[in-house]
């Protein structure tokens, strides 16, 4: 292989064989992109127009599955939850992550220890996170019971058993699990900033918070982009955490779209409905991500 490449590079052959090794090496990526992601998506979209039940069948019913989907209260609740959870977890994980990183970046002692403390929850799966927080937030023996036993009898903190705030209970657990990683990325970004910038800022008498906000943050654009991709991908996919922590309850109050997809595909044995829901998820992702991804990664440098 290598000899072939070298000699072919020397002879400057036709276009197809330019970078031939690179093309061969990219075959797994190309296959994944085309067969799994594009192929799988098209397949899903196609079958969302059918009335497939347990097994996929090409029996077309037009937009029936979509009409039913948008008339289903549970789907609407799922969308609303995802919006609340998504926006808040994006904001909070970025803000908390950045603030923690900035604090750790003050040439403090015990930096390694503190960083490990903030990061360790990321090593735990969402299933584990869900189980632990379900426990901490259980009104009968969790935080609420402990505070009450200290004498504050009327203290109420039972987000997992209160329909109107349950999604925030999920958010608390998600932030606990994920902010450490965001902090790491941010810290890495801060370490990439030239020390001369700080010196210069100090000479010019610019207060630290302004330096962070107007100079350092804009310079951290690449790391922010990577962070955003990772957080946002996690948000759309949120599933395990909800299943482990609340199973979508109480009632349907903490349902999320990915769970709707799974439940209808496999539990209700209605693939068509599940595929219609996945198509809607993919569509909304595509509307936001594709133009941005193309601008960010697709342009020729």
């Amino acid at each position, binding site marked *: 292989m290598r000899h072939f490449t070298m000699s072919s590079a020397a002879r400057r052959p036709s276009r197809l064989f330019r*970078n031939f090794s690179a093309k061969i*090496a*990219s075959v797994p990526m190309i296959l994944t992109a085309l067969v799994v992601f594009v192929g799988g998506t098209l397949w899903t979209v196609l079958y969302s127009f059918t009335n497939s039940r347990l097994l996929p069948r090409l029996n077309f019913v037009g937009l029936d599955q979509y009409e039913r989907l948008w008339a289903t209260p549970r789907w609407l609740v799922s969308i609303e939850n995802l919006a609340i959870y998504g926006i808040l977890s994006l904001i909070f994980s970025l803000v908390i992550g950045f603030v923690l990183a900035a604090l750790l970046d003050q040439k*403090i002692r015990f930096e390694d220890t503190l960083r490990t*403390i903030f990061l360790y929850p990321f090593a735990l799966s969402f299933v584990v996170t869900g189980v*632990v927080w379900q426990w901490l937030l259980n009104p009968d023996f969790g935080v609420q019971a402990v505070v009450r036993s200290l004498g504050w009898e009327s203290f109420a903190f039972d987000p997992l058993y209160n329909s109107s705030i349950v999604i925030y209970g999920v958010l608390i657990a998600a932030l606990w699990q994920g902010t450490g990683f965001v902090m790491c990325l941010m810290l*890495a970004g801060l370490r990439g900033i030239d020390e001369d910038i700080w010196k210069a800022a100090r000479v*010019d008498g610019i207060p630290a918070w302004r330096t962070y906000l107007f100079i350092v943050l804009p310079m951290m654009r690449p790391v922010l982009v990577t962070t955003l*991709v990772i957080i946002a991908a996690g948000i759309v996919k949120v599933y395990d955490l909800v299943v482990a922590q609340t199973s979508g309850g109480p009632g349907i109050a903490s349902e999320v779209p990915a769970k709707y997809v799974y439940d209808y595909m496999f539990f209700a044995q209605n693939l068509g409905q599940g595929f219609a829901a996945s198509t809607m998820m993919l569509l909304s992702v595509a509307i936001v991500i594709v133009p941005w991804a193309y601008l960010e990664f697709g342009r020729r440098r």
Partner: protein
Amino acid sequence: MATPQTLEQFQQKCAAVLRPGLRKNKELERFRVSVKNGNALAADGPRGPKPRHAFSKRNIFIYGTLFVVAVYYLLPLYVMVVTSLKGMPEIRLGNIFSPPMEITFEPWVKAWATACTGLNCDGLSRGFWNSVRITVPSVILSIAIASVNGYALANWRFKGSELFFTILIVGAFIPYQVMLYPIVIILREIGLYGSLSGLVVVHSIFGMPILTLLFRNYFASLPEELFKAARVDGAGFWSIYLRIMVPMSVPIFVVAVILQITGIWNDFLFGVVYTRPDTYPMTVQLNNIVNSVQGVKEYNVNMAATLLTGLVPLIVYFISGKLFVRGIAAGAVKG
């Protein structure tokens, strides 16, 4: 106090300092130094403003905040450990935050060796080795593929390569549940369904987007001169990759290994769908133990099982936390 005007001036000054050419030279210089020191990315010293006196107001504020936040992060771990060491009667009576009155390791023994799911009463022990057998090849294969992808994307761009990459990134947003069915079909068609190799392939596919992104960014941040020099010397695709790129990319490989070990070890969905009971990974066993309620929920056993399952990624993080930040700095900062 700086007025907005001076702030603007300052930003311009910064831009001048960071003019592309200048930056490249500087980076290259730093890079050479760091390679000489056997430390591919030296940028791990704090960059923030210089600290003042030890007991200044500012320091009290910083340490105070960090301490409070650290308590919040540690609390769940503390509760897990404490609970796993208590007996059930004590759990029922007591406060979840109180330390155990009588330490018992029985829940740990039970979680590891005797907790039941259906008829199998051998706890998590069975799942541990399965998880190892799944994780090791998956980590190796996924990183091998993603690093080559990143290298090809950064240094050997060909027509359409950026398009495939964009598809991959969009693919990172597709919920796994959506892909479950098509993957079953694909695996069935290539005859890998139900085998461990099938699961390895699945992990490699779904690990690809984020890993490729990290590797691509890292390789793009390496000084192009190195690559060009090797090309002039007549080195080809694979020899540059193996002789120059891989040895210089230890930090990002470390990050990839950490991320993949965590991700694959913690995976539940693929593990349960694409394996069979005798090859179930530990997370599936954990779910089985936590959800097989036999009468009363044994919280101590559940917590012990939870900790045991999380132990491998936790140890990886505790040991390599520093390398992780350093490597992330290398893969995510430039782009």
